[in-house]
């Protein structure tokens, strides 16, 4: 099918497209990784918060009449709203479970994902919603050395970089960040040092929800419907696992790497692309069980 003669140009194109896809994965997985790092729980509801962010963003855009202003407002309002919802959920439904076994938190998030998705259908309907026209700024593509990269992907990449940088600064420069990093290392000991771990939990959960919702708003111009949350959650899990559970930079690298590997597999490999990320994950877990950067991060 694919011609055997593969020029450098094709490889470069594949690589660039893979990186831009990987950045979407990073955006989706980063909040999940943060929450895992502190709470030790894979949050099944993360995809639902992502989707909820998209729907709230859409509501904001419709209220403000769409356009660039509406989209910009959505990028601010929806993440804040979902962060508030996430923080509220952390206080009310997650918190009572901190003393119990982690599987209960996992199962709770499983139920919460269903509840959020169904609530969105209940409010906005089950069908894919109408979306206002994308601001014309995003039409077209940058062409560099024969490789074209659409403006919307450029925007997504830049936003991803900003989120990664912002979160890294938050973790390294703020008091919350310090508590979070200490909490990742050892929750009990951090608490005994008199640090307010509880508030850090709430803040991190809110931050995770914020990033998820930001991705959701960006995804409005990919495709939005109630079940997109459920369809992005497994790839997001895989990124977090491959990166090393709870490792911030691990998730960033894993997202980009999986994006590139997937892209090459989809272009050149004869296996169904849908199986690729699972096979990659299994291989990584067998060869390097702690993930790419898992161990290093825990020992920080």
């Amino acid at each position, binding site marked *: 099918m694919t011609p055997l003669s593969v020029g450098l140009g094709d490889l470069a194109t594949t690589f660039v497209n893979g990186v831009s896809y990987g950045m979407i994965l990073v955006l989706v997985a980063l909040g999940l990784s943060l929450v895992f790092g502190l709470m030790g729980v894979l949050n099944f509801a993360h995809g639902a918060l992502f989707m909820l962010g998209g729907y709230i963003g859409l509501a904001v855009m419709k209220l403000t009449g769409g356009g660039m202003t509406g989209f910009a407002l959505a990028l601010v309002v929806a993440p804040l709203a979902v962060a508030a919802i996430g923080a509220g959920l952390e206080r009310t439904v997650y918190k009572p479970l901190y003393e119990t076994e982690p599987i209960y938190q996992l199962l709770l998030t499983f139920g919460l994902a269903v509840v959020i998705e169904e609530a969105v259908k209940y409010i906005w309907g089950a069908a894919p919603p109408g979306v206002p026209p994308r601001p014309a700024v995003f039409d077209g593509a940058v062409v560099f050395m024969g490789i074209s990269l659409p403006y919307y992907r450029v925007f997504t990449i830049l936003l991803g970089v900003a989120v990664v940088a912002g979160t890294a600064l938050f973790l390294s420069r703020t008091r919350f960040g310090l508590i979070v990093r200490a909490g990742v290392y050892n929750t009990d000991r951090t608490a005994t040092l008199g640090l307010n771990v509880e508030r850090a939990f709430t803040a991190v959960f809110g931050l995770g929800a914020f990033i998820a919702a930001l991705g959701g708003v960006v995804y409005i111009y*990919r495709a939005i*419907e109630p079940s997109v949350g459920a369809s992005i959650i497994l790839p997001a899990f895989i990124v977090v696992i491959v990166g090393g559970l709870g490792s911030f930079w691990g998730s960033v690298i894993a997202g980009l790497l999986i994006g590139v590997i997937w892209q090459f597999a*989809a*272009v050149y490999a004869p296996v169904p692309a849908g199986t690729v990320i699972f096979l990659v994950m299994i291989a990584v877990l067998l060869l390097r069980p702690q993930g790419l950067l898992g161990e290093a991060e825990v020992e920080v």
Partner: protein
Amino acid sequence: MVEIDRRRLLKAASATGVAGLTGLAGCLGGGGGGADSLSIGVVTDTSGPYAHLGNSVIRGIKLGLAQSLDADTEGLADSNTVEGSGITVEILAEDSGLAADTGRQKARKLVQSDEVDILQGSVSSSVAAAVQDVATDASTPMFVDTAAATSLTGENCNKYTFRTSQTTYQDALAGGQYAAENLGSSFYFVGADYSWGHDSVAQWKSVIEENGGSAAGESFVSPGTSNYTPYLQNAEESGADSIVVALTGTDGIRFSRDLADFGTDFEVTATGVTTVPWMQQVGTAATGFSGIPKYFWPFPDNSTNDWIIEQYSSQWNAVPSIFTAGAHAAGYAIGQGMQSAGSNDADPLIEQWHGMTIEKTARGDGAYTIRECDHQAEFPMYLGHFEETSGGSMDVEPVLDDTFEAESSIRPCGETGCSGIEL
């Protein structure tokens, strides 16, 4: 709040017994009445990602019944009963999600506990196959209204199964011929990586090749894929000048976004992709698609279609879906059959539907004929593209390019895999 929910749950749980008991009384359940009453059990997705299609189908059946029975359409949106010309038809809808096992249990329930006279469904071909299996075993007629797998009226055809929606082959015959004649000479195929996608690609490919086009390559994409650049890249490397896409739901939406953003100059046609929600999301990116073999509400110019659009917008504040026309035809055929047969028994009704020309349909008077050889309806196929528009709730509108005669957009009786139907 939580308390109320729990009480409701318990109430519902205890109701399992009660409702089951009323079911065994038979006549109370709706079916089994005189010749002037009938019940239809619809098994479809009313809660999942294709709930909008499932609901549009239920509405289509109601409209078809109402029109054939000359019923009052007032309050049709909130009622499960259509009454007119001395006939009462009850519609019992059951949610299958997209699960074949749930669909099968619901179909069994409709046949046994509710004693429905006719089964109908389903969005997913997998669920439709389950419902067909139950209907056939229970000697209950079934109308397929959404699922496009050719096998339902092909290898698995039988006297009980009828289909008024289009098969993947009807799409492929109309769309493939049009594509080979108008959209280029070399084609790349992108299909969803499950049976429907594989069937569609194989059928479009064979039709295009028969009509002088050539196949440059193909890719299959897992549902839920969020990046379509590898397939566009492969299409470009293959040297094709056109792409045929067979994707559904949000996969089709994301493909269309990537297609528009990467500014490729492919001609693109599609099956499955172009639904109304798709138009509402991709907006002007829809204009990249042409030669689409689908019913869109503005295409047919006749009084029945006008009536459907008017009813649909006043009752449900929406435009009909691409499956409403077929569901309406099924509803109309059921009403028409009951009036001609003067009975609600399966055999006389099947005799009516066997070879029936449906009087009023969205594609025109007498435009649907249920073939005797496989019980698949043949009907004219429309081909259209999308143009930007201002005003209205959408940025684009479908525009009709061509109409294919019914006979030329369906496989001849000998080639369907159906070994014939004996009444």
